[in-house]
């Protein structure tokens, strides 16, 4: 009995050791990023390694990150772009998904076929014609150039359609009897019952668009409009790799919003991100 118990404790210890070693590697960049953002240049350049700064230089580093480049502006741009995209995606996908799920209409099969085809096309593929279109419209270097290409999400339509199909027909018929139009059924009855799907998609969408580099890199040259990832690149190139303390302060600022949301709402966050398992 006690030998068995001992073996179990040993196994558990081994498990924690292995997982712990892995976790150190996984977390190292985060720890090092934050640690470096607190250090002075001389300490960063000094040989040897220490986690906690001897000479606390956080204020100077973060001040530089905020003043050298418009870091708050980057964050604000991220918020504006992600909110804008999410707004359009929800406003377009929800009615379409409802129509596909609950209203038989001529052409519905074609629309759904387009959704399925669209699911297979990565967002990078339409980039060249879209760039051309925005260049011709004179919309490069605008928020619109960042928002409009993502204004419709076939993935959202697909996901919401699946979800709406499980909304009972009776509920929708009851709303019709109570005098709601199809439009108000969508927003007053179907959407409130579909919050889990909408929340999960919202997280998926915001994370994807907050982190996207490909498209902003193509349509933006104006620093003032840069999204967070593009902003951090501007900041790095401006620093020319010399002031790592400030650079790490910058990356900490950019990374913090999503990481904080993740730590606060882990379950929903994981649900949202792994949704893309369907899309790939």
């Amino acid at each position, binding site marked *: 009995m006690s030998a068995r118990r001992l073996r179990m404790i040993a196994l*558990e210890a081994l498990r924690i050791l292995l997982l712990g070693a892995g976790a150190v590697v996984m977390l190292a*960049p985060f720890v090092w990023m934050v640690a470096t953002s607190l250090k002075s240049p001389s300490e960063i350049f000094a040989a040897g390694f220490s986690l906690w700064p001897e000479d606390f230089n956080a204020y100077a580093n973060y001040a530089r990150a905020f003043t050298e480049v418009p870091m708050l502006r980057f964050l604000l741009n991220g918020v504006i772009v992600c909110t804008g995209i999410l707004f359009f995606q929800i406003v377009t996908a929800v009615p379409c998904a409802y129509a596909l799920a609950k209203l038989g*209409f001529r052409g*519905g099969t074609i629309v759904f076929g387009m959704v399925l085809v669209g699911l297979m096309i990565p967002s*990078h593929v339409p980039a*060249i014609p879209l760039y051309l279109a925005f260049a011709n419209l004179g919309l490069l270097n605008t928020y619109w150039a960042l928002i409009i290409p993502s204004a419709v999400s076939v993935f959202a339509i697909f996901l919401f359609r699946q979800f709406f199909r499980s909304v009972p027909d009776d509920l929708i018929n009851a709303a019709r009897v109570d005098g709601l139009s199809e439009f108000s059924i969508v927003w007053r009855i179907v959407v409130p019952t579909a919050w889990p799907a909408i929340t999960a998609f919202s997280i998926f969408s915001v994370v994807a668009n907050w982190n996207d580099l490909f498209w902003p*890199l193509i349509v933006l040259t104006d620093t003032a409009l840069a999204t967070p990832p593009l902003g951090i690149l501007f900041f790095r190139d401006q620093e020319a790799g010399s002031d790592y303390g400030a650079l790490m302060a910058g990356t900490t600022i950019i990374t913090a919003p999503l990481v904080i949301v*993740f730590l606060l709402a882990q379950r929903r966050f994981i649900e949202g991100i792994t949704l893309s398992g369907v899309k790939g």
Partner: protein
Amino acid sequence: MADPAPAISAVPAKQVLKQAAPRNEPSGGKARLRDRLAGIALATPATALMLALLIGPTLAVGFLSLTDWGFGARSFAFIGLDNYAEMAGDPVFRRSLINTLVYVGVVMPVSVALALAVALLIQGGRFGRTFFRTAYFLPVASTLVAMATVWQFMLHPNLGLVNEMLRLVGLAGPNWLTDRGLVLFTLAGIGIWETIGYNMILFLAGLMAIPGHLYEAAEVDGAHRPLDKFLTVTWPMLGPTTLFVIVITAIRSFRVFESVAVLTQGGPGNASQVLLFTMYRESFVYFRAGYGAALTIVFLAFILILTLIQIRVIDRRVHYA
């Protein structure tokens, strides 16, 4: 009355009286005109945007790939498959395609295997489940461009944490991001670091879905040791999930772009050139739209093949469950 007259003599009453087999009442059926109009009205905005932003441009890319057009050019010529022919003879393209495949070939097996190990270890005990899950998932939840910048600093040949640690054990660390032979694997390492958490979650979900009574049955049948249980229950039950994770990882890592754009720009030489970055550079740095479109089509072709495999795998998974 539509049904045939009951044959009198030899038929039992229950059968005489039997009603027509219950048919499902037609649920939706053909919708009414107003519903049809409402459907069209509700679907139109999304459909129009899909056509304008996704389907149309994708078709346009296919067309552009057959031209020699460049951004800003006043005219273009239809050159058939010349772009694809050029691609076949272009060492940069070949380099980037091989690099992409090597990158996928490294990231996919390693991150899937490690993620499976992590998921099994997390699931295998009580202590620290939430903490470890959070720790391994954190890279997925963070901004890759920012974290790539951190990696760049950590991999700095002199100041970087990695070489600092190697120095502690008496090793001279290499130039991770400027060594031609090494750079692609460095990027793959970052890719693995970024992907493990995602795959781990998929595996954890797969593990949770295995019914507990299967383990009890296996125990009754004599599978006492953890390894026996793994081989008799876990691994076979996890098979479909594994297949799914493998394909998903392939698709995700085939799209590698951010780390290359941030860390190497395809260099040194073309040692870390990958397909999507080549496409970006040809199209938006050199402004060769026609050639870039052809590269896009090749990229799309690979993704489509992988997606079709994925659909097959999802079907399998559904049938399995």
